[in-house]
């Protein structure tokens, strides 16, 4: 086996108690067929598909139940042949225990498949686009836990290195381990298909050194393949080396840029389970209707790796594992570091379900979220943080709701691996504080966007009203102007007429006055006395005239 000496390390990380031996020896066993399957429409990151079947309709195994036209989305398929008995809300696997749209199928136990036309070895001649379509239509999503639609990541632009992630760094989980041990050839075949799509130059299969059997099986398959395309890389067992960014750092010594993608540094990372599913889709034309799930922990009688059809109730699987032990205490979906607890087993297995850990009370020690000691700034969290954050500072600002500072300390680069909470001597539920802060900021962001939109709408309305008002005023003004013009003209005429009349009248008066000007009559042969009297009368008249004129 290869040594691990030539590889790089990421910052921090933990050495944990892995407890993988509980389920490690259990070979993959098919889960028994059940009466009823519940298929959530949304099992991936992105937009939910569109339901294309109806209640009462008979469906075949592998038939598409919900299709999708959106880019970041994935279809779901029927795991069995049978009848759709209901389409509606049903409780699904979610930390909040929420309900979501599900298609419920009654199994007819005929196991009748839809028509399948596998392309098989012909994929070598196919182009990337067509192959991506096959993967997309098979509903394949990242099975490492992120459930991001797989085909979207598989771009052929500038990707040199394909990393197949067989790390499985969470304690207890062994589903990928068993898959690699038992179906190494198929995993490599799937990796080869991805490599063909993205035109990769090399493919590195990364496995932690606590899984020597899986590594040996993969090595045998690589030797048989004999193409130089594949290379096995054993990496030291450190949590969380299975995290995409950390694994890329280990393998390539490069870091995925902040806010960037692995493609930015010419790599693509896919889980072994995803590679296997792609092999099934291409070689058997089987959509993703089953996955391997580890059922483990001291809370069930017999730990097992079951190949479970999507939609099977957890309770049915547990029954096949011999049921619960008396001290079953906490049921965790996923691993103990990043999983979430659920309080009922009446939930269907989905594409993301890699492990169901039913623990007894000795196995887990969740921190007390109500009361913890204050942070003493010891810095142990800084030592273990694989993102090189300052968890204690993040906590300080997150607990006081200082969103600005929290963002400055790169809250959104936290991968929520839980290393900081694990080592905290004050037992502070740090990850929970970060999740809360993130969702608070998201909510605020959404609120801000909403209020921005509302403000924009309000401002648009105001603007529209203003425009209308201005238009109306403009119209009125024009009207008024028009009226005024008309009115103004007639007034002018009137004034002119008046003026003319006045001058006319004045002229008439003048004329009259002129004609009426006093001409003395019979003034011949007047006596002096008479003349004096006339003179006096003239003077008086003049005086009165003057007086009047004044």
């Amino acid at each position, binding site marked *: 086996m290869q040594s691990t000496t030539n590889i790089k390390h*990421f*910052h921090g990380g933990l050495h*944990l*108690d892995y407890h993988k031996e509980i389920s490690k020896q259990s070979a993959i066993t098919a889960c028994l067929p059940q009466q009823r399957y519940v298929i959530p429409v949304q099992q991936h990151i992105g937009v939910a598909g569109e339901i294309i079947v109806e209640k009462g309709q008979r469906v075949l195994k592998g038939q598409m139940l919900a299709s999708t036209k959106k880019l970041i989305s994935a279809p779901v398929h029927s795991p069995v042949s049978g009848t759709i008995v209901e389409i509606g809300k049903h409780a699904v696997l979610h930390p909040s225990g929420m309900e979501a749209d599900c298609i419920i199928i009654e199994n007819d136990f005929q196991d009748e498949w839809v028509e399948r036309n596998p392309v098989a070895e012909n994929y070598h001649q196919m182009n990337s686009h067509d192959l991506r379509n096959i993967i997309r239509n098979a509903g394949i999503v990242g099975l490492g836990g992120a459930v991001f639609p797989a085909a979207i990541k598989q771009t052929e632009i500038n990707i040199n290195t394909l990393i197949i992630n067989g790390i499985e760094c969470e*304690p207890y989980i062994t589903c990928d381990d068993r898959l690699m041990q038992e179906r190494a050839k198929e995993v490599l075949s799937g990796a080869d298909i991805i490599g063909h799509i993205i035109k990769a130059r090399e493919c590195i299969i990364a496995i932690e050194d606590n899984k020597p059997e899986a590594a040996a099986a993969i090595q045998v398959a690589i030797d048989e393949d004999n193409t130089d395309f594949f290379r096995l890389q054993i990496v030291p067992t450190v949590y969380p080396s299975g995290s995409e*960014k950390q694994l890329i750092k280990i393998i390539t010594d*490069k*870091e*995925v*840029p*902040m806010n*960037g993608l692995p493609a*930015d*540094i010419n790599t693509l990372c896919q889980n072994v389970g995803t590679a296997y599913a792609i092999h099934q889709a291409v070689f058997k034309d089987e959509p993703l209707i089953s996955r391997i799930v580890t059922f483990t922990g001291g809370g069930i009688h017999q730990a097992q790796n079951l190949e479970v059809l999507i939609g099977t109730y957890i309770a049915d699987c547990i029954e096949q594992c011999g049921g*619960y032990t008396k001290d*079953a*205490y*906490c*049921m*965790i979906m996923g691993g*103990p*570091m*990043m*999983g*979430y*607890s659920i*309080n*009922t*087993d009446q939930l269907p297995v989905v594409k993301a379900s890699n492990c169901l850990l039913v623990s007894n009370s000795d*196995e887990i*020690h*969740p*921190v007390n*979220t109500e009361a913890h*000691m*204050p*942070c*003493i*700034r*010891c*810095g142990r969290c*800084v030592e273990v943080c*694989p*993102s*090189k954050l*300052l968890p204690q*500072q993040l906590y300080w600002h997150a607990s006081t709701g200082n969103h600005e500072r929290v963002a400055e*300390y*790169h809250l959104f*680069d936290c991968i*929520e691996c*839980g290393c900081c*909470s*694990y080592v*905290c*001597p*004050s*037992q502070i539920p740090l*990850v*929970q504080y970060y999740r809360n802060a993130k969702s608070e900021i998201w909510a605020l962001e959404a609120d801000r966007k909403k209020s921005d939109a509302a403000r924009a709408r309000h401002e648009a309305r105001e603007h529209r009203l203003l425009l209308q008002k201005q238009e109306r005023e403009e119209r009125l003004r024009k009207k008024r102007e028009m009226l005024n013009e008309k009115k103004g003209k007639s007034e002018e005429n009137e004034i002119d007429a008046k003026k003319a009349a006045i001058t006319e009248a004045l002229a008439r008066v003048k004329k009259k006055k002129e004609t009426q000007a006093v001409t003395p009559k019979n003034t011949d042969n007047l006596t002096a006395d008479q003349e004096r009297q006339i003179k006096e009368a003239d003077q008086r008249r003049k005086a009165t005239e003057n007086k009047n004129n004044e």
Partner: protein
Amino acid sequence: MLFRKASAPFINAQANVHSIMYQVLYALIPGTLAAIYFFGWGVLINLVIAASICLLSEALVLKLRARPVSTSLKDGSALITACLLALALPPLVPWWLTVIASIFAIVIAKQLYGGLGFNLFNPAMVGYIVVMISFPREMTFWTAPLGAVDSWLSFGDTFSIIFHGVLADQSSIDSVTMATPMDTLKTQIGLENDIESTRNHEVYGALFSNISGTGWQWINILFLLSGLWMIKQKVIDWRIPVSFLLSLLLISNFFAVSDYASYPSAVFHLFSGGTMLCAFFIATDPISACTTPKGRWIYGAGIGVLVYTIRNWGGYPDGIAFAVVLMNMAVPLLDYYTQPRIYGKNEVE
């Protein structure tokens, strides 16, 4: 079947603050025993006074603040403060001085800031500084260590000095007090005597030993060993002691080499006074120290430079308390500007 709900991660290292604090307390034991061995009953009496007053005032304030008293008292942090104070104070200080220092450390410097985890300054050092500034005369009440004298001061005399200010036979305490080696050197160098002649002086010579001061060197060696054990146990971070000791070593060596007659050697500085206690027990108090790796280097180095500066050119015999508190002030700034480069930052886009 219904199950308990909880939040990830569901497992943890089960470390706790109490065990950290108690490991610090255990680590303090050898050096404290050595201090008692060399300086006698006074250290023990100081320890009893400081511990009882610290615990009492902590309990009182916690009750006033309506906080759980017993869990907080049990965390051991008040005992550490008491222990550091008792070791820093001269063994013959009056009882009320220890009381004032303890109350100030716990009530003002710790609880008024919000208690454990919220204090900006090292409580013990704040308490020490308050009495150092207020009662400088009493703060010189050191005795000669065993080795320089043949036997301890009797319990009766020590008790009488601490509680009545005079020896049991009512005579002045001046006959039993003696300056520390570091203070002696400082005074003698100030009087134009060189180090060599002071070390061979008929009276003061007994205060010096082959490494540093009589008694002091063993106390320092024991604190160093306990400190290394704490680093191994991951109770304290190694960066602060390393950077502090390294900076003190480099700067003292620089001056000692340039003028060996007036500047004590680096070895003398490293094993004198409170150097090792500071390196592993005071400067490493995580609450008041820097929390970023780079910040811790700067913080430790800063204390080293300040300690040396105050020891050589300052007005006080030892500069630990002032150096630590001054660097405490710089912590928020250092933490802010020494954030590590996070994963993926400044990678080629």
